[in-house]
């Protein structure tokens, strides 16, 4: 089997295991290339369907093209699209762009807190109504007990220690030092009430694998990843105040692959354009323990 076939097969296997084991399953979709590949793999696993809601945490500071792209695919692929948001913090302007928080505090407020409360159902969820094309308040407030996330082991240190099925306690905390054993494709699928499991089908993929798969499958991605004539493109997507484009003239998927293989990004970390990582002591560990993706 080819490398991409192997990766695809394992990811599909994980998706199906998760689907069979969790009554309230949801997938986080950050709109970036990784979680879009994840979405594609879900369609592979379920033969064109996505039988669970896709949850997006909207910080309101996302690059606008990302939201446009999200809603376009949600309509085209008839996705069960849900988003959550920290409305209170935004109303009080408790954010980094408003000058009241550091970058890490802002991530904690707009992402970690919003994520935990959206997953638990404590805060409102907004669901896309395909009949009207508008988002409406979701009546379902049940907590999601299985949450599929597109993290990759090669992204940064703490993610390299993840399991495919990773438990989180009531406060979404991750006990890094005491993780369940995982062997022979048997995963942790039994859990105490109040806790939930993060599922990571993309764990074994690298940035290069992701792009080669996008190329092979012709998966549509946000155009922000490509140079549109300015000599700059995004390598990793996030909120505009904290994510910066890199100097690159890669105009399409093939050129990105070439750049990753032989060009100047060959040995530069992917998240080097993310300012919050640097503020957190070079890694995302503090944020991730508290429940950040």
């Amino acid at each position, binding site marked *: 089997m*080819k490398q991409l076939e*192997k990766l695809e097969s394992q990811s599909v296997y994980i998706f199906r295991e998760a689907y069979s084991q969790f009554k309230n399953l949801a997938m986080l979709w950050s709109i970036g290339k990784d979680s879009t590949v994840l979405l594609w793999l879900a369609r592979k696993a379920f*033969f*064109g369907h996505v039988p669970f809601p896709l949850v997006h945490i909207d910080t309101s500071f996302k690059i606008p093209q990302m939201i446009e792209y999200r809603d376009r695919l949600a309509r085209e692929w008839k996705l069960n699209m849900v988003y959550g948001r920290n409305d209170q913090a935004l109303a009080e302007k408790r954010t980094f762009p408003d000058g009241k928080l550091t970058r890490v505090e802002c991530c904690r407020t707009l992402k970690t807190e919003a994520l935990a409360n959206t997953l638990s159902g404590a805060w409102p969820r907004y669901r896309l109504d395909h009949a009207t094309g508008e988002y409406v308040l979701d009546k379902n407030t049940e907590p999601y007990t299985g949450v599929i996330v597109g993290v990759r082991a090669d992204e940064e240190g703490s993610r*390299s220690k993840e399991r495919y099925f990773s438990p989180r306690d009531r406060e979404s905390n991750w006990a890094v030092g005491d*993780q369940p054993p995982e062997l022979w494709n048997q995963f942790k699928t039994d859990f105490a009430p109040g806790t939930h499991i993060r599922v990571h089908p993309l764990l*074994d993929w690298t940035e290069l694998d992701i792009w080669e798969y996008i190329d092979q499958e012709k998966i549509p991605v946000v155009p922000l990843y490509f140079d549109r004539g300015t000599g700059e493109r995004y390598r990793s997507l996030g909120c505009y105040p904290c994510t910066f484009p890199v100097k690159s003239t890669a105009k399409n998927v093939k050129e990105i692959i070439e750049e990753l293989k032989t060009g100047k990004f060959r040995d530069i*970390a992917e998240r080097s354009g993310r300012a919050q990582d640097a503020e957190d002591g070079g890694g995302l560990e503090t944020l991730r323990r508290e429940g950040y993706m």
Partner: protein
Amino acid sequence: MAAEQKMNIVIVGHVDHGKSTLIGRLLADTHSLPKGKLEFVREECRRNSKPFEYAFLLDALKDEQQQGITIDTARIFFKSAKRQYIIIDAPGHIEFLKNMVSGAARAEAALLVIDAQEGIQENSKRHGYLLSMLGIRQVAVCVNKMDLAGYRREVFEKIEKSYSAFLEEIGMKAKSFIPVAAREGENLTGRSARMPWFRGSSVLEVLDSFEMAPTIENKPFRMPVQGVYKFTEMEDTRRIVAGRVESGTISVGDEVVFLPSNKRSVIKSIEGFNRPSQRTVSAGHSTGLTLTEQIYVNRGDIMCKAAEPLPKVSSLMKVELFWMGKRPMVLNRLYKLKIATAQVPVRLKTIERVIDASSLRQASKKEIVRHEVAQCVLHTSAPVAFDLTSELEATGRFVIVDEYDIAGGGIIRQMLDDDHADLRRSIAQREQKWDFSIVEPEERVKSYGHRAALVLLTGPVGMDKRTIAKELEKILFSQGAKTYFLGMGNLLRGLNSDVELHRLERHEHVRRMGEVAHLFMDAGLIVVATASGVNDAELEELQEVTARGTVLIVNVGKNNFKRAVIDLDLDPKLPAGKNAEKVFQLLSERKILFAR
């Protein structure tokens, strides 16, 4: 353009024998580190005034830098001229054995590190033993810290000799032994000038000589069922049996049999999304198949090719397992066995031998404590389909769940006949020759608005189960369900009039009741039956005879079962109508009944 092959390598060994240093140095010497990482770590060390160590490169988590030990497995991507590697750094500390196992289970090959000065330690042996149980056949032993042993040949050869002897005892052989000084980079990426007496290959050369796991297309076909999907949205009418082919090959038109349920059908199509159509699929691929007959197949069944050797089916198996749970594994406690996609309650029946994996000495026989390996017999509450690990690995190994956690893992050495082995063989023959109705089960379900099932009311004599059963029949009938009350008395004086009502003959009564229920269930009915004092063995027999169709066990009064998990417990003091309502509710919850 195809992505490059990647090989998973695990590094194991006793704590402080230098696994992280070996990897760190390997990364540095092969220029596999992200730009600036080495400088960053050197600078960090300078700022905190501690000497630089290559191991720090891996200790990405703050916890680990504080304690100086690897807590969990980390994955490191690394490249040689030949291919890419994913190196899994497994912790050597005994506290984290479950993490070592998690890391090693993913690997295709292993590097086992032994400190030249400290020599073979407890975990050097325990890890070696576990590698063999995990099925890792390609192992290279690195005798590390040769610099501290003065690069002396006799130090290396002494360890090589005694560790080879240990491996031989557990039926393993290392591909090679390499003397290394990881900190100095000796014998890592090139041959060491300091150890000219060593004629073998360097670590990197040995890694490159390992082979990728061979595909197992030439073995019998096995596909554990992960789910049966019917997504009705967007007018999709396909009913797809989904799973990953663990071994062998299957093609459109092949006859298949599902075990342990014994259902049979023929492959109609192979399904996929955004891929060219295919008529054959083989080992390693996650796929989906449609069948010519719409038989009921459940998650946990193993799809096999009727013309090939089939897996074993039994509720008794002799296994070898290692225990990772905080509390010991004990006799008579209920655990959960997960094998391929099946999950079934299980008990430890007997412990034959407990082995201390680090000394190979036998230990106590009463329980299996954490970090011990044991040979024992497991008894599942329902028969499962499996292969022997020696024949097929993927369907021959399992994990044990204690409450919420995976606490043990093991391999199946031998199938043991349980009490129903003979019956099972004759039922398999019956199913093989079954003359199917032209009306498919799915059509009946659609027309009747419910699935077929046997509701068995049992419990001590005198609980008036018959009244509840008849009340249930009435409710079901009034709701439009096709249902029938099967009275044991009616059978005794009719079909069974040739069998004496004797304790020894009781199992024949049970068998016949099962056969009659099976016919009604084949006709799509919800059969309501009563039988007093049914025990575990009789219930298992009934489940065999009904070809593992849906049997719901409703107990009234004192519970007589030791192994069986009952579906509903009724209070005999409640009015019969109220109890019948409860069973009706259960049928809805279990989706036997659904709104038409």
